[in-house]
């Protein structure tokens, strides 16, 4: 068998969105951030797939769903390398990269145990102070959270 045939076969979709080049092991995080668990769209996903660009990758295909730029940018925290491909009638109609947003709203937990957001029911807010290194500053307690310490709500 040649190499291509041994790849996991993920079938094409007619209309919808393909999220490609997700870092390995972050597929479920992307599903959670985009709230795909609670949607009724047909969905296929794969992890540890072979990738020419990155060695290994994850991928999600969602039937009949399109995402706003704002929604997509939320996944920058876990999949900054992702490519978003929109498909209409089996054709690629748009392709874009993820942009790191200026602010992260109600997605990440503050690392500071004494932060008011960890005491009361408050939606968290972070300013992205360093987009290259994903360094976040809590809007409330002003403490910094580094990429390695990012913990999702």
């Amino acid at each position, binding site marked *: 068998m040649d190499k291509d045939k041994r790849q996991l076969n993920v079938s094409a979709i007619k209309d919808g969105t393909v999220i490609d080049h997700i870092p390995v092991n972050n597929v479920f995080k992307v599903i959670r951030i985009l709230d795909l668990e609670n949607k009724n769209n047909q969905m296929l996903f794969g992890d540890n797939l072979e990738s020419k660009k990155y060695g290994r990758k994850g991928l999600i295909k969602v039937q009949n769903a399109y995402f706003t730029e704002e929604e997509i940018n939320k996944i920058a925290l876990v999949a900054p390398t992702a490519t978003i491909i929109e498909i209409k009638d089996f054709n690629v109609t748009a392709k874009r990269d993820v942009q790191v947003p200026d602010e992260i709203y109600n997605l990440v937990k*503050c690392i*500071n145990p*004494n*932060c*008011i*957001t960890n*005491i*009361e*029911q*408050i939606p968290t807010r972070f300013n992205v102070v360093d987009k290259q290194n994903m360094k976040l500053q*809590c*809007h*409330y*307690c*002003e*403490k*910094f959270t580094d990429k390695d310490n990012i913990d999702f709500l």
Partner: protein
Amino acid sequence: MIKNKNLISITDFTKDEYLKILRIAADFEKNPNQKLLNDHVVASLFFEPSTRTRLSFETAANRLGARVIGFSDSGSTSVKKGESLKDTIIMVSSYADIIVMRHPKDGAARWASEVSSVPVINAGDGANQHPTQCMLDLYSIMQTQGTLDNLNIAFVGDLKYGRTVHSLVQAMCNFNATFHLVSPEELKLPSSVKMHIKNSKLTYHQYTDLNEVIPNVDIIYMTRIQRERFSDPMEYEKVKNSYILKRSMLQNVKDNLKILHPLPRVNEISEDVDNMKEAFYFKQAENGVYVRQALLASILGVKE
């Protein structure tokens, strides 16, 4: 425009706004009893006790003729019964024209300002910010030096956890200061604060020996070193006496030198310093009232 602004973090005000508050504070120092807030209610919400800060704010409000409502310790209020901060603030902001609050949790004041319908002044939120302390420090520096520009300032003691030090360093980065940082190894200024100095293209020097900086500086800002800040109690025992300022150490100083301390002091400035002309810490505390008068009056829009 300072009217209706919140003061949560020192970065909420611009340099010009700070200078304006300092000018108004000087006016209140000359003439403290100005009944500009006769028809106003100031809420003073101390979710944790801080007697000095509360008395300073309440004196400021009283000298302006305002009525003060509130509590000095959340132990006796509905907060203890489990009411959320949000609910308390919404309720109080429907009674009062401005809220002064102290809270043990970091970020509590910012959150309160977002749910309040009236301006909020942060009187300390956990280990985070205490901007009115910073403003009274600036006022005291201005008063003793005649300027805020181009000064040599020594910060002494616990530079790692001292939030008043962090705020004042950040504020003085606007005024071309040179920073002399004197602390034990374990309590050095955090790199995030040093970053502000570097980003402002200013200089800092680090020392472990207090005697080294005394002859060369315009301001000595003393802070307390607490035993519980040390991971190794032996370390504390070794350094605890090295950061005590004594009269004998102040024989060869600049003419304009003044010693500041956010108070309360324990033993880090020995009492034989108190009656020297360099000692300014009690006057500094008094200045807090004028600065807080200036803030209340400006934010409530009764004084320009």
